[in-house]
Every structure is written in C-alpha cells, then in structure tokens.
C-alpha cells in the first residue's frame, strides 16, 4: 500500500527517548508527543481509518514499553513493532539498532513488540505492517535508538573512569578507555548508563564503517522455523481453551435466518455479526453473516460447521454477483462512459495528439485474486476478571495491531489499558491479515461463551470469504510520433475501488486503483501527452489489499502495451523502453542492468524466447527479463529470470533477494493459473484443488542483482516490488515465442 510519506527525521524530532533502569538493566523507550502515551479512541469505526494514513489515535501503555534493553548478562533485547510474516523484518530492524549500538550480534535477541503507540511505524503513525514500509518507516528511529543508548553507555564509562567521553570508544558491546585500555562491558555499565542524560543528537555510524547494515546476517527466526517451535497464531494454546470454527453464509450479501441448534458433541453455536469497519462491500455493519461452532477440538468444530444445517436469507442482489457480468459492465463503461470517472493524471492534450496518426488500442483483463496465506485466519481471545477490571487478551497473526486494539475496544467497551494484543508469527499475510473480520469474530465468541477461545477458518472459508484483489479491465489507446516515441497515451482503468468500499463518500482519486499507471506512481516513462483515468466499477464483492495492490494490475497493462507499441514500431522492446527513460537515470540503469544480466539481444536457446518488463513502486525499481518455452500447448515452462533491483540501500541483501524471489513466485502463480470468479455471490475456488500454484519442479532459476546505490537515495520497500513486472514479462516472452498476445490473465484458468 502506498502511503503519504513524511521524512522520518521530522517524525523523530517530535519524539524523544526515555531511559530507565529496571533490575539492573538499561531500558530505552520512546516518549510520545506531549508526554501522552494513552490517547482516547472512540471505537473501531473511528480508529480503523488510521490504517489509511491518519495519525494513530490508538495507543496502549504497553507493559513492555521498551525499544531495547541491555541486561547485566550482556543480552541486548530489541522489540520490533512490525509483524514478522516471512519478510525477515525482526532481523532487519534489529540490524539497525545493533549497528549504532555497536554491539556483538551474537548477544542480540529480538521479539515482537506488543501493541503500543510507541511501536507505531513512523511512516503511517500506526503500528501495522503494510505497504513494504517497515524499513522505510523505522530506519531512522531505530538507528537513533542504538546511537542514543551507545552514547549513554559511553558517558557512564567516562564517569566511572573520570575521563572525558572523547577518550572512550564503543567497541563490540564494550567501552574502551583509549588512554588506559581499560574495558567495561555494556552489561557492567547498563544500570549506570540509565542515569546519564539522554543525548539529543547522537552520531550515527558513518557509511564507510557500517558492520551490520548491508550484510546478509542470518535471520533470527529461521532456526525456530525448522524445528516446529515458532508459534504462529494457529499454535496458541491457553488453559481451558475451546475451539471455534466459522461458517459464513454461502453467498456474499446473505444473512442468518435463525440460529441453528447446537449440534451434538459441540459446545455452542454463536451468531457472528459484522462489526463497523471490518466488513466491506456486501457485508455491511450489523448484519449476521456467519456463525461459529464451538467444540473441544478444532476438528470437531470444523466438521460440525461444515455439516451445520443453517438457514440463510439470500437477497436477490446476491444472485447478481457474477464476475462475468462485471467484466461486461466494465466493457460497457469503457465503450460508453462510466457514471463515476476520476482523472488521475493529465499531461498535455490527448485529444489533440490522438487526432494525428492511427492509435493502437488494446484492452487488458485481470481477475479477482485471493490472498490465501498458508496459515488460515485465526485469532485467540481470553477475557478474564470481573467488570470493571476485565482484561481482554488477544493473540493474533495480525498485520495491524492498531486496528486489532480498536476492534477489541469497540466490541468489549473496555478502555485501551485493559486490552493486550500479542502478535504471533504470521504464516503469510499478503495483505489479508491487515483486515479485522476474524479478530472481531473471535472476540464475539469469547464474549458469548465466557471462555478462552481459538477461532479458526477452514481453507474453504478462506477462499469463499476473502477481501479479494479487485478485478480490472484496462483500455489503453496510444500513438507514436515520427521518432517512434509515444506522443499520446490514454489509460483507462475500470475496476472496483478498495478505498471507496471503505469510505464511500470520498471524492478523491483512489490512489491504489491507479498506482503503477501514472508518472508519479509508476515507471517514469516520458510521454508527450498522457491521460490516466479510473472508471469506478460498482461491483461490491469485498475487496482489499493484495501484495503490491494496484501495481499488480496496472503494471501488467502498461508493460504489455509498451511491448505492443514496440512491436508495432518494429523496435526492440528493451530499446523502445530506453527511449522513454532518457530523463529517468535510475530506472534506465535498472533496466540496463537486467538486460545486461540476461545478455539481451544475444543468442537464446532454441525453442525459447525472452520478455522484459519494468516496475516502479514502493520507492523501488525492479526490471525483469524472463526466458520461457512452451513445451506443450496450454503450458509454459519458465527457465530463467534475471532481475535487477534498486531499493536504495539494502539493509540485509539476502532478505531483499528472498523477498524479490517470493514476489516473483506470487506474480507467476497469478499470471499463469490463479483467479477467483463469482457466480451468484459464490467464489469459484474452494480449496487448493481448484486453483494452482507453482511446484518445486517448475521453479525457474532466478538471478537477482541489487544495484549499487547512492546512500542518499531514500530507502525503497522490497516486500511487494518483485510482484508486478513478472506477468507482463511472461506475456511479452509468450508473444515473442508464439506470436499470440495474451491480454487476459490468467494464462491457463484452472
């Protein structure tokens, strides 16, 4: 998700660090504006939009309100505000602290922070893990935290030795007296350091002396993920806990007619309503769209939910939720005009430019996509104590602690100080675990049955009740000038709007619907005239943020069209792109690097062809060349992918590469096989048997190079930028190979 950016330095200037000593340990935490760290929140409906970039009005007095803690045993404990969902963020954020703290990496321990305002990502003013924004958001403040603690440890040593601080140096978890060579460890200094004044402007380690930043340190979470000890949300177990399985109305828009009786062998059936701010599209506030079946193990609960005989009221409007009709409706809007059309970019006069020469017009089709993280949605809740001193404890694989806290406040009515949110490992997030429907359901069950409960969705419920990547139909009309450069580019994306589903009265352009298609949000191609429009599609199937969001749609259309224009001009597609990047040196360098890596223009093995594509999103630039063959009809074999990435400074280059590899696979699955269609409000995909993902034997060789970067270039994100370019690169290679242009994804519907 793209969010308005504010320079982290500006954010930090309004905050300051607070040091203290607990049981001989040095503890550093963050003070908030005006010293207030408990702010009122008026409920979930009010609080959820903070996920959209508004200031965080939700905060907790986290019991573990620390950023870092140095114990007398030399252990350095770092709490990270981002959720670990496979991106290696626990390691990456800890590297930032360790660098400027100048500590021995072996002594560093990392844990997920509880929910708390002090852990808010400065980029969003909220604690949430979205938009490839963790490094970009926390970089400056975590480095400053390390430097602050280090200078206080040095000050404590200088005081002990009665020498000026400039004679003391921090070396690998110790402070050395450079005149006597005396040494004190951080552990020995910890308690005393907490009494030192907090420095206001501690120096950061200079670029030429960095030890951890830029190094592919091994990830701290991986050992736990090879022996079964990593605790995901699904793995949380509490004393006296019961298990709940969810069954939704089989069609979107339907509601429960009457609560079914409790099946034998189970404990309860609990009707579940849509909490304000957690339902989208057809799922409106207050409707009872699901039930939970509670039992003494997951299997019993799931079996009973699956066979539960429930009566649902399904309105006529649900029967009209057909994705084929949505596509026809989009085509109608593109042909005849749409009732709600919003201009995202206007450069020059398209009308004037199109009147010259013969434009090329093509239409690209993208389906709804499900997130389907490997760990299905789940949440564990325990409400304990007597009013007014009740506590609501939540264990959740959440991408938004801020919204999880707000959800709990809205449902329980408890103040923020009586709500604890514990973030587990996430078995994949992909944008789905930003939503709070499953959290709301778990709290509702815990309140109804007055026992600790772990609520879980089956895979079938997951596919049936996602908040899907929206469908889109994109028409591009473009023409070239005498120099074979684009003189006019009319880009019209017809798709449902995620932001309008959440804020229907918004009159702004949905920035995520068009991201990847404008000069400001996509590849900075220079076209003489450009018009980018979003034609708002009214389909109200619930939609949400899917890895790379609108970029996954628009990059396919833009990069396919660029290829088609190159073919029409009889130009090499790589050279054609170059012509339009002469004022974009960074993008040009990335494109050139990928082409060089692939030896573009050189010999290609017989029976194979290559395609190229470029993406620019989340502050990063990614170019990909893919080499494919089509061994039999209806199949593509992907042999090699060469990928160049400019994400600014790579904090952990190996984690960056892993994220790009993962993004590419995500993009391949969606390009070749995956889609969700709807008939009468029901998803066409029910489980992994009627969709398809890549298998080990089909995995291409991915070669990734990170661009050497100017340290002054702002950091870019890496979780999502690997996704968008691979689909058009494959389509471009497929055209080269077969002469057939694929404009409708997926290639091979299952």
């Amino acid at each position, binding site marked *: 998700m793209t969010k308005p950016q504010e320079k982290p330095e500006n954010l930090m200037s309004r905050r300051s660090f607070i040091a203290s000593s607990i049981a001989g340990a040095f503890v550093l935490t963050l003070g908030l504006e005006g010293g207030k760290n408990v702010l009122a929140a008026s409920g979930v409906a009010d609080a959820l939009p903070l996920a959209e970039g508004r200031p965080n009005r939700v905060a907790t007095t986290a019991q573990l309100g620390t950023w870092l803690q140095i114990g007398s045993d030399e252990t350095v404990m770092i709490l990270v505000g981002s959720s670990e969902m*496979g991106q*290696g963020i626990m390691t990456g954020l800890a590297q930032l602290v360790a660098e400027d703290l100048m500590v021995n990496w072996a002594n560093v321990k990392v844990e997920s922070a509880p929910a708390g305002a002090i852990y808010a990502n400065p980029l969003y003013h909220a604690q949430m893990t979205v938009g490839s924004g963790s490094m970009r958001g926390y970089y400056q403040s975590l480095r400053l935290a390390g430097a602050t603690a280090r200078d206080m440890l040095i000050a404590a040593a200088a005081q002990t030795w009665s020498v000026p601080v400039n004679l003391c140096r921090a070396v690998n978890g110790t402070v050395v007296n450079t005149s006597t060579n005396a040494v004190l460890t951080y552990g020995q200094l910890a308690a005393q350091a907490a009494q030192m004044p907090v420095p206001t402007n501690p120096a950061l380690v200079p670029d030429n002396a960095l030890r951890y930043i830029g190094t592919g340190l091994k990830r701290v979470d991986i050992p736990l993920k*090879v022996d079964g000890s990593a605790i995901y949300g699904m793995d949380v177990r509490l004393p006296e806990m019961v298990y709940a399985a969810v069954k939704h109305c089989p069609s979107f828009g339907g509601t429960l007619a009457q609560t079914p009786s409790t099946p034998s062998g189970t404990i309860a059936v609990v009707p579940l309503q849509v909490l304000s701010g957690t339902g989208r599209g057809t799922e409106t506030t207050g409707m009872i769209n699901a039930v939970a079946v509670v039992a003494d193990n997951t299997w019993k609960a799931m079996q009973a939910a699956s066979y539960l005989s429930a009566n649902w009221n399904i309105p006529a409007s649900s029967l009209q939720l057909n994705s084929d009709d949505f596509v026809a409706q989009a085509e109608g809007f593109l042909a005849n005009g749409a009732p709600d059309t919003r201009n995202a970019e206007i450069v020059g006069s398209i009308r004037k430019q199109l009147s010259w020469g013969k434009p090329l017009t093509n239409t690209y089709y993208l389906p709804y996509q499900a997130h389907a993280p490997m760990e299905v949605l789940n949440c564990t809740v325990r409400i304990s104590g007597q009013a007014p001193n009740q506590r609501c404890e939540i264990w959740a694989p959440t991408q938004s602690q801020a919204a999880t806290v707000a959800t709990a406040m809205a449902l329980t009515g408890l103040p923020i100080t009586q709500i604890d949110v514990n973030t587990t490992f996430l078995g994949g997030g*992909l944008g789905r675990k930003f939503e709070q429907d499953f959290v709301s359901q778990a709290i509702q069950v815990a309140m109804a049955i007055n026992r600790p409960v772990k609520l879980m969705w089956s895979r079938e419920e997951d596919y049936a009740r996602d908040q899907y990547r929206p469908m889109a139909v994109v028409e591009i009309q473009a023409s070239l000038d005498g120099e074979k450069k684009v003189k006019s580019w009319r880009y019209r994306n017809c798709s449902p709007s995620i932001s309008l589903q959440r804020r229907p009265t918004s009159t702004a352009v949905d920035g995520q619907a068009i991201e990847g298609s404008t000069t400001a949000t996509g590849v900075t191609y220079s076209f003489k005239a450009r018009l980018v429009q979003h034609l708002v599609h009214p389909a109200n199937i619930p939609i949400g943020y899917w890895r790379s969001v609108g970029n996954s749609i628009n990059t396919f259309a833009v990069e396919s069209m660029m290829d088609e224009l190159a073919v029409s001009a009889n130009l090499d597609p790589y050279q054609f792109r170059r012509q339009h990047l002469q004022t974009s040196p960074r993008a040009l360098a990335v494109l050139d690097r990928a082409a060089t890596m692939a030896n573009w223009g050189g010999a290609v093995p017989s029976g194979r062809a290559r395609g190229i594509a470029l993406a620019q999103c989340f502050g990063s630039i990614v170019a990909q060349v893919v080499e494919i063959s089509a061994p039999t009809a209806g199949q593509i074999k992907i042999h090699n992918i060469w990928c160049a990435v400019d994400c600014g400074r790579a904090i952990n280059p190996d984690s960056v590469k892993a994220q790009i590899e*993962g993004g590419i*696979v*995500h993009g391949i699955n969606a390009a070749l096989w995956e889609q969700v269609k709807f008939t009468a409000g029901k998803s066409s995909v029910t*489980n992994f048997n009627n969709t398809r993902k890549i298998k*080990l034997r089909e995995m291409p060789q*991915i070669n990734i190079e990170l661009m050497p970067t100017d340290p002054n270039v702002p950091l870019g994100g890496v979780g999502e930028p690997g996704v968008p370019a691979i689909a058009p690169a494959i389509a471009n290679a497929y055209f080269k190979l077969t002469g057939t242009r694929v404009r409708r994804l997926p290639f091979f519907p299952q």
Partner: protein
Amino acid sequence: MITLNVNNVSYQVNVTTDMPLLWVLRDVLGLTGTKYGCGRELCGACTVLINGRAERTCEYDVGGAVGKQITTIEGLSADRSHPVQQAWIEHQVPQCGFCQSGMIMEVVGELNDGRPKAEIINEVSNICSCGTFQRIRAAILSL
C-alpha cells in the same frame, strides 16, 4: 483410549479412531509444529513421518497410526542437527515458515525411501506461497 508412539514417547489419548492424526497431534498432544493448511491432503503442511515415510495427516485417521512410529518436526532432532534442518538454515530457506515443517518432513521421508535428490525435487508437491522453492532446491541439492 488409544496408544500412540510419537517422537519415541508413548501417549494415551482419549479420541475416536476417525479423528485425523493432525488434530490429535496439535490439539490433544500440543505438538503444533505440524500445520493445518487445507484439510484435504492438497498442500502438505501437515506432513509427518509414519514408520519413516512421509504422510499427510489432515485426513489420516488416528486409528491407522496405532502401533506405528510417528515422527513430527519436533522429534526430527533434539537440536536442529538433522542434515535437512541444517541445510534449511544454511540456505536460509523459510520465509513465513508455515509450510516448512511439512516441507522438511516430506524431504526427509523421501530421503528415507532412498530417492535420488533429482527425483525428490521432481516429486515434492507441497505448496509454499512465499515462493521459497529456489532455496528449497538448493538445500536439497546440497545434501
């Protein structure tokens, strides 16, 4: 009451014989390293070893496991020293890690069957939606 041998420990469990082994491991014995991903033997997240062979357990009646040696990810080694675990760490395979218990047990099972590495790479059909397959392949080839 039935008796199960899991990771060389004998357990008495009070469940019906048609309960899937996955849920006995997770909800009754608390061995949560084995995961639920689909419930239809499609994704492999629930793979364990039964008498040394890789089996998906989400539809495997616990009654069928009585008298057999069950090994879960927790019992593969005491200290992550199994060569497959070591290779997974060396190649920094896991991302979210949710599928990796099953992935590791699948590979161990196939190695136990004496399959060549190239054949294992060809056969593994476990799903990983983070897309760690390039590193899985490298890790297997390094064994």
